[in-house]
């Protein structure tokens, strides 16, 4: 059997799928519902100073990058293969659109985190 041409993408898909399955729902709850609705009281984890402090810490930055990048790669890989199942002939532009946007999004997140 010939080895797959795209093992890294498959790995990123798996890692992102696992991370989002483990904590995705809780992250949505914290950043999109509890935080904005003020359920944490005055000391919200998504308040400017708190989030900035978290994002400037190396571990915090790594966590944020892992979440954004792996979620993007997971989604890109899954969407790309689902397009095929929907009857779309997967030409180079589709590949570039899916994996390219994941790459650009990851790079943007890394650059912003490094410049904070």
């Amino acid at each position, binding site marked *: 059997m010939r080895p797959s041409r795209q093992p890294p993408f498959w790995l990123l898909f798996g890692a992102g799928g696992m991370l989002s399955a483990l904590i995705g729902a809780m992250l949505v709850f914290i950043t999109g519902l509890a935080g904005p609705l003020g359920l944490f009281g005055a000391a919200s984890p998504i308040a*400017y100073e708190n989030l900035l402090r978290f994002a400037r810490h190396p571990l915090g930055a790594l966590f944020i990058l892992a979440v954004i990048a792996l979620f993007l790669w997971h*989604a890109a890989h899954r969407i790309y293969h689902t397009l095929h199942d929907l009857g779309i002939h997967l030409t180079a532009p589709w590949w570039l659109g899916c994996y390219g946007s994941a790459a650009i999004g990851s790079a943007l997140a890394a650059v912003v*985190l490094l410049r904070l």
Partner: protein
Amino acid sequence: MARRQPYVRSMDGWWKPNPFFRKYMARELTAFFVALYALLLLAGLVALGRGPESYAAWLETLRSGWSIALHVVLLLAFLYHTWSWFQIMPKTMPPVVVAGQRLAARTITTLGVAAAVGASMLVLAIAWGLAR
């Protein structure tokens, strides 16, 4: 010579009649919500990097009714993703043998969901603790 017009069967909704493939499509659809959420986080991060005013405006957007409604939908999609991810995990991971017996699919799914609950509680505790 007449141009060949081979018959190509339409793929529209091929997955609809079969509950197995309907579940498959529902599972695959969660990827759109995962991508959307990652982009929302990225937008928030960019706002954070631009300074307090920019970030305050982003928080205001997050407080809008549209954003809250969207995040409720995202939450449901992520919960379904968690469930379906561990539902198919017995098939996507290599078999685990414990004490000479292959680990049952039910057990793997239960352990996965339990791990998700544990990890989520840890994330909540850290988020809570960081803000004190």
